[in-house]
C-alpha cells in the first residue's frame, strides 16, 4: 500500500478544526449545568481507501469523533467534509460497526444482513443473494439461519461487519469492534478485516485502545490526547514484509512502532487517570 499522505488527490474525509462541547448537569449542585469540551481543534485528513486507526486513553472522545463523522451528532465548531461536502447527518455512505454488535436478536444472520439492504432499497429478490454473498465474504457460509444468540461473539461481529459491507458504504466506521472478543478471536478477525479491506478498497476509520491492534491494522495511527481530545501525533506505520513474516507482531519493526505509540500514549493515560480521580473526588 502506498503512503497516501502526500498524494495530490482530494482527501476522502477532512476534519477542519472540529470541536465538540457537551453540557452536563452538575452532580453536586443540580441547578448548574457545566460544559466540558470533549474534542478540540481536530484537524485530520483521510485519503480514500486508507486504513486509519485512532488510539487514545479512555474518555478522550474517540467515540465522539466517530459519532460526528457518522452524522449521529453535530460538531460545536469546525466542520467535517466527506468528499468535499460537509456532513450534516447520517447516511448510508458510511457504515458503522459497533462494539456491541447491534444485531437485531429476532432476525437470523441472513435477516440481519438484509436489514441493511432494506434501508437502501435493494429489491427483495436481490437481497437474499447479496446477503449470502457477504456472509460468505466474512466466512459465515452455513450459518445464515442462526439467530444471534446461537452465535459466538466473533461470529456476531462478523455478521455485523457483513451487514455494514452489504449496503456498500464508501467509509467503514469501526468503534472498538473487537474489544469484547477474546484474544484469539480478535486476531483472526483482524486478519479477516485486513483481507476484506484490501479486497473492497473501503476507507476504514478504526477506533481502539489497543496499541497492538492499532499497529497491526493501521496504515497510519492517530494518537489522541486525554480530555479535551486532540490529535497528538500521527504515526505512519509501514511494514516492508507484511506478507513475508508469519508473525508480524514479534518482528522488530512492529516492536519499534509499538514502542513509539506506547510512549506517546503513556503520559496521556496517566493524565486521563488523574482526571478521573479528580472527578470522582469532587
Amino acid at each position: 500500500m502506498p503512503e497516501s499522505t502526500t498524494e495530490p488527490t482530494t482527501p476522502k474525509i477532512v476534519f477542519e478544526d472540529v470541536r465538540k462541547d457537551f453540557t452536563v448537569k452538575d452532580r453536586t449542585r443540580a441547578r448548574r449545568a457545566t460544559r466540558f469540551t470533549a474534542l478540540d481543534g481536530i484537524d485530520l485528513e483521510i485519503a480514500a481507501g486508507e486504513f486509519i486507526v485512532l488510539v487514545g486513553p479512555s474518555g478522550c472522545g474517540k467515540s465522539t469523533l466517530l459519532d460526528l463523522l457518522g452524522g449521529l451528532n453535530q460538531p460545536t465548531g469546525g466542520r467535517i467534509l466527506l468528499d468535499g461536502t460537509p456532513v450534516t447527518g447520517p447516511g448510508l455512505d458510511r457504515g458503522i460497526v459497533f462494539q456491541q454488535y447491534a444485531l437485531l436478536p429476532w432476525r437470523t444472520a441472513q435477516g440481519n444482513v438484509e436489514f441493511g439492504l432494506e434501508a437502501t432499497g435493494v429489491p427483495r429478490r436481490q437481497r437474499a443473494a447479496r446477503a449470502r454473498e457477504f456472509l460468505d465474504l466474512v466466512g459465515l457460509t452455513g450459518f445464515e439461519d442462526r439467530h444471534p444468540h446461537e452465535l459466538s461473539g466473533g461470529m456476531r461481529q462478523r455478521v455485523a461487519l457483513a451487514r455494514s459491507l452489504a449496503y456498500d458504504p464508501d467509509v467503514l466506521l469501526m468503534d472498538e469492534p473487537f474489544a469484547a472478543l477474546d484474544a484469539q478471536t480478535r486476531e483472526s478477525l483482524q486478519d479477516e478485516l485486513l483481507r476484506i479491506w484490501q479486497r473492497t478498497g473501503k476507507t476504514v476509520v478504526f477506533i481502539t485502545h489497543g496499541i497492538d491492534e492499532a499497529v497491526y491494522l493501521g496504515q497510519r495511527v492517530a494518537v489522541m490526547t486525554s480530555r479535551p481530545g486532540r490529535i497528538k501525533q500521527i504515526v505512519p506505520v509501514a511494514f516492508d514484509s507484511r506478507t513475508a513474516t508469519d508473525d508480524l507482531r514479534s518482528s522488530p519493526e512492529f516492536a519499534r512502532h509499538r514502542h513509539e505509540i506506547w510512549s506517546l500514549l503513556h503520559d496521556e493515560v496517566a493524565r486521563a487517570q488523574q482526571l478521573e480521580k479528580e472527578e470522582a473526588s469532587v
Partner: protein
Amino acid sequence: MSPTTGTATEKTRAPGVVSAAEPVPAVSPATSTVSAVPAPHDASPAGVHQARSTAARLRHAVRRLPYLLVRGATKSVAIVALLLLWETAPRLGLVDRTFLPPFSEVADAWWGLAADGQLADNARASLTRSFSGFGLAVAVAVPLGLLIGWYRPVADLLGPLLEVFRNTAALALLPVFVLLLGIGETSKISIVVYACTWPILLNTISAVRNVDPTLLKLAKSMNLSAPRLFQKVILPASVPVMFTGIRLAGAVSILVLVAAEMIGAKAGLGYLINASQYNFAIPQMYAGIITISAIGVAFNQLLVTVERRLSSWRVPADG
C-alpha cells in the same frame, strides 16, 4: 461431533426447540478461531444429518419417554392431591359437607349443567364479554403505548396519571360505570376494557423505552424513517415485554368480568355462581367456580403459547 451432542447430553433439556440449536455453542468458538474456513465444518453435516435425523429423533423420543412420564406426574401431583383432599375431607366429616360437598358431587353437578346447556350459555355470555373487552383493550392500548413510550415528553407528562389509574382497583369504579352506562353489556365490557388497558399500556410503554439503545443508534446511523424504525426495530424489540402485559390483561379480563357479573347480570358464569349460592345449589356453585378457573388457565396457556412463538429469539433455549 453432532450425533453425540444431539442424543447423549441433551436429557435434561426441553425437546423440539433445543435440538436444532444445540450443537452451535459447541462448534462456534472453535470455528471462529480457525476462522478462514468455517464453511466445510458446517456445510457437510447440514445435508447428511437431515436424513439421519428422523430415525435419531424417534429413538430419542422413546428414550425420553420415562422422563416425560415422570415430569407429567410431577406437574399433576399437587392438583391430584387437592382433589383427593376435597373428596375425602367432607366424607370424613372434617368440613361441613353442606358447604363443601365432595368433589365427585361437584363433578356430577357440573355434568348436569353441561348437559342441559346452562353451562355453555353462561360461559358463552362471559367469554363474549371478556374477549371483546380484552380485544378492544389490546387494540387501543398497544398503539397508544407505542406512541406514549416513544415520545418521552408525553410519557413524562402522562406517567403520574397512568400510575393513579393503574392503582385504582377497577372494581371500585364499577358503580361509576353502572351509573354512566347502565347495567347492560356496555358497562360490563367497558369495565373489562378499562381493567385490561392498564397492564398492556404500561408494559408497552416500558417496552418501548427499554429498547436496546445500540439498536436505535444503528437505525439512526442508517437513516431509517420513523415508520420504518417502528416497524422494523421498536415493535419487534418490544414484543416480549408487551406480551407480559397482555398476559396480565388476559387474567384480569376474566377476574373483573366475573366480579362484575356477580353484581348485576342475567347471564354469565359470575351470575351462575351467585345465583346458585342464592338458591343454595352449592355443588352447582362450585361447578361454576371450577369452570372459571379452567377457562383462566386455558386462556393463559394460549397466551403463553403465542408469546413463545413471537419471542423465541429472546430465550436462548431453555424451554
